[in-house]
């Protein structure tokens, strides 16, 4: 063996070992034990970092899942039950089943049904509008149509329908993260159970005015006539402040209430059409899907709406 080789071996070994000891010490000092399961859980997560679970990011949620004794309080709305089952399997914990939910827009006051009584000319932002006044229609409660919810949705699951001036939720894309619910200054959006076969019934109105006033301002407002309340055998409907609300936990989707509503304020989604009925307000969820399939332009439109540049 030549000198060079020997020197090489000696120096490298010496430096190597010294370095190794230092690095070892470092590793020992710094490495917080990271449960390998955190990585596994994280891998399973959608990694959207949307915050819908209540944690700042998916990784934090994963950590929490690993730490928690049970998963009762932990739920990733984006991944839904299936994901939680996977996570539970990884961690060998039980997952609580949560009914899948979807965002619904509780206002049907399209341009057609709810005439404008003035022009809004402020910043295109629902909260600013709501702070200033009740909106450009007579309904003090209804959608302002400036799309703050659409902007808030990180999943491109919403767009503004130019025809109606109302936001539309694209059911398939909605992850029920609730961002839109929090964004809307008028509390119009609600997360509701998706329902069996994605069918659901709800009152698409939150107008708490007396019937006459409500009706004057919007043709499809709930006027609190109590007809639906009486019709419902399951006590699923309550009326408060002249406004009906259907409790989705009690509703059995019997569809009795919808036809009796004199203003068509109750929406039925994804049901097969009833032949005898007069055509209703176009079912928005279905409309959304139809259009989403046939006409991608709308999606583009939604995107444009989403784009801060496009809005200026």
């Amino acid at each position, binding site marked *: *063996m*030549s000198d*060079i*080789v*020997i020197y*090489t*071996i000696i*120096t*490298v*070994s010496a430096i*190597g*070992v010294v370095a*190794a*000891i230092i690095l*070892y010490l470092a590793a020992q000092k710094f490495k917080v034990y990271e449960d390998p399961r955190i990585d596994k859980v994280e891998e399973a997560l959608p990694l959207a970092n949307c915050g819908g679970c209540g944690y700042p990011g998916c990784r934090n949620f994963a950590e929490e899942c690993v730490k928690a004794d049970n998963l009762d309080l932990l739920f990733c709305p984006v991944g839904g039950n299936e994901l939680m089952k996977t996570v539970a399997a990884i961690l060998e914990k039980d997952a609580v089943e949560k009914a899948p939910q979807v965002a619904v827009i509780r206002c049907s006051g399209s341009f057609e049904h709810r005439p404008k009584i003035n022009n809004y000319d402020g910043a295109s932002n629902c909260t600013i509008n709501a702070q200033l006044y009740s909106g450009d229609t007579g309904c003090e409660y209804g959608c302002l149509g400036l799309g703050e919810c659409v902007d808030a949705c990180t999943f491109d699951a919403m767009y503004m329908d130019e025809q109606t001036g109302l936001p539309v939720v694209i059911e398939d894309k909605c992850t029920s993260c609730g961002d839109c619910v929090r964004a809307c200054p008028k509390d119009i959006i609600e997360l509701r159970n998706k329902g069996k076969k994605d069918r659901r019934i709800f009152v698409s109105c939150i107008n708490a005015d007396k019937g006459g006033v409500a009706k004057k301002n919007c043709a499809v407002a709930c006027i609190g006539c109590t007809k639906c309340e009486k019709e419902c055998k399951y006590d699923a409907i309550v009326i408060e402040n002249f406004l009906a609300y259907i409790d989705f936990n009690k509703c059995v989707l019997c569809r009795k209430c919808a036809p009796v509503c004199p203003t068509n304020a109750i929406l039925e989604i994804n049901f097969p059409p009833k032949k005898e009925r007069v055509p209703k307000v176009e079912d928005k969820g279905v409309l959304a899907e139809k259009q989403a399939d046939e006409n991608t332009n709308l999606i583009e439109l939604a995107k444009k709406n989403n784009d801060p540049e496009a809005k200026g």
Partner: protein
Amino acid sequence: MASKTESTLRNMVLALLIVALVSATSLGYIYELTKGPIEQAKLAKKLAAIQQVVPEFTNNPNADMYKVPSDVEGDTLEMYPAYNNDKLVGTAIKTFSDKGFSKRIYLMVGLLPDGSIKNIQVLEHAETPGLGDKMSKTKSDWSEQFNGKNPTDFSLKVTKDGGKVNAITAATISSRAYADAVERAYKTFMEHGKK
């Protein structure tokens, strides 16, 4: 991964020692192996440059190399005499200049015994691509203008400074440095270099 080695101190030091030993030993041998070729490659490069700038020779100019102190303190020029059957046919001179645009530039200047320029090669430079680097033969034929000139009547200064060297457009500095290096080679050769 059943048989994973445990992290005891003994294991660790041992493992590292082994890794270090194996790596060092193999490197050592590879070094020995490549040592020859590396040196050869360097030599080949030098010889190629020498060959380019002097007439055909029969000796080994590298072996006959001698150093001559230059006008810059502490720096010497390497002279590679080329003999064709014991007759000096030319000398390749490794010269330099600090007047370049960035860093020192090194040239191999081939002078015939009378001091006229046979050919020049750029050995090392860090001039700007597209500007100063036009002095190297691969980029442009600017340097051809020196070939066959004798500095006695070919003033090694750019035209701007009253000499005869046509500067590279927009790279007067590099041109100046090039000329400066050639002049250094010429002067040193004429004063002390002839052998």
